[in-house]
């Protein structure tokens, strides 16, 4: 019984701490190798109370959480990234009280570096997890694209972008260039044939 109470207490405390944390998602430019990611992670680890630091090298994304009481600002985050030798592309923070703040390309919250952004859904053909990585990466490489999430079941790409910077046709072309048909641009046979065998979807879109 004591053990159960102890577990419940521990879990409650853990949830309470988690709930009082600000969750940061930072997109960082310049992470060209694992050693770069190491330098970035180390710089954030040096800050007391930052926890759950993760670096997704392929996406150039750093995530971590800090106690809400720290009230960590975008400037502090940018300074840390800068000290690590890299460039902050955007910052998104989910505050403990439920507010979401964004900066850079992520921003529409009126922050100094904020910018308007729109969302749309594009039909994109693909087959698997490799396709997902390839499609999202191709979309994110287009200037102005903030977020991309491809759904295999729905065969669609949820796109968040800055309308003043992004030409949607460029997104279609970038994805088609990698071998995936979109509702607007059909991939060349050469690009399609270059896909890994598991990525060769049935071509339907014209």
């Amino acid at each position, binding site marked *: 019984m004591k053990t159960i109470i102890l577990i419940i207490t521990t879990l409650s405390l853990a949830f309470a701490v988690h709930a009082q944390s600000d969750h940061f998602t930072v997109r960082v*430019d310049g992470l060209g*190798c694992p*050693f770069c*990611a*190491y330098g970035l992670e180390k710089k954030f680890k040096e800050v007391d109370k930052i926890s759950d630091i993760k670096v*997704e*090298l392929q996406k150039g994304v750093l995530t971590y959480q800090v106690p809400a009481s720290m009230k960590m600002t975008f400037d502090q985050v940018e300074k840390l990234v800068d*000290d690590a030798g890299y460039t902050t592309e955007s910052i998104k923070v989910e505050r403990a009280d439920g507010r979401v703040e964004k900066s850079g390309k992520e921003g529409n919250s009126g922050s100094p570096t904020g910018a308007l952004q729109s969302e749309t859904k594009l039909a994109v053909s693909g087959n698997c997890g490799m396709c997902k990585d390839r499609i999202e990466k191709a979309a994110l490489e287009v200037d102005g694209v903030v977020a991309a999430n491809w759904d295999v079941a729905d065969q669609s790409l949820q796109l968040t972008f800055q309308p003043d910077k992004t030409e949607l046709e460029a997104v279609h072309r970038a994805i088609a260039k990698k071998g995936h048909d979109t509702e607007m641009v059909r991939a060349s046979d050469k690009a399609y044939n270059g896909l890994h065998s598991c990525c060769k979807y049935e071509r339907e879109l014209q």
Partner: protein
Amino acid sequence: MKIIALQLIVLSLLITHGILAQGPPIRLDKPIMLGAGETTVRALFNHVNSDYLDYSSLILEGDYNINRSTAVGLTVPWVFNHDLGGNRLGDVALMGKYQFIQKDKMGQSTRVAAKVKQMFPTGASLGIPEIGMDHYKTYAGFAGAYESLKIGVQAELGYAVVHGLSHHNYLSYKLGVAVPLLEPSYPANQINVYLETEGMNMRSGEEGAQYGYYIAPGLQYARGKFTVETSIQFTVAENLPLTYGRNWSLLFGGRMVL
């Protein structure tokens, strides 16, 4: 020559078909620094075969980043050769580097750094660069790199002044290409293949143009913050003073980010 051609072909194939990431160069310098306050240490065992003298050396290097764009370094070679009367210290060098160009994009970075290296004649009087020049030597140049999740290219161009021996001053240039063999991941767990080339030109002497061209395929394994690496350098063409010449050299080493 066939071996070099084969390596070039293999490397070309890897570059055109790989979707990979790379680590730090083996024989070249890197303009990308890992943040303010970071320290990197290296230990390299180098064996050189030349017509003048065969010797081995253990080169200890330490780099410290004063800030995000400025680094200082110390190189201490320890030379092993019975003909030199046993093991002894080589030419110690101090290095300063300032990164002045940085263009970052998602998963890629282009950097250029200015670099100065001062070597001190703490080694034996052999006339061999880095080991025992018997002269102060100052090197100034630029190191540049393009690093991405697909490929790494490093280059270096500089000029070395040998004080009191001006006809030994030389232009130095290096180019390296890196291709990893494993999918990029963090923490690091990857094997990288390198092809690094090196050239030097001295002022023409009585024997005509003086030059040396070298090529070095290499292999690097990185796990976490540790890296082990090896490369073998071959002479492609050479017409240099005897003490500068080398037939081949074998390098084996490791590095760690503290």
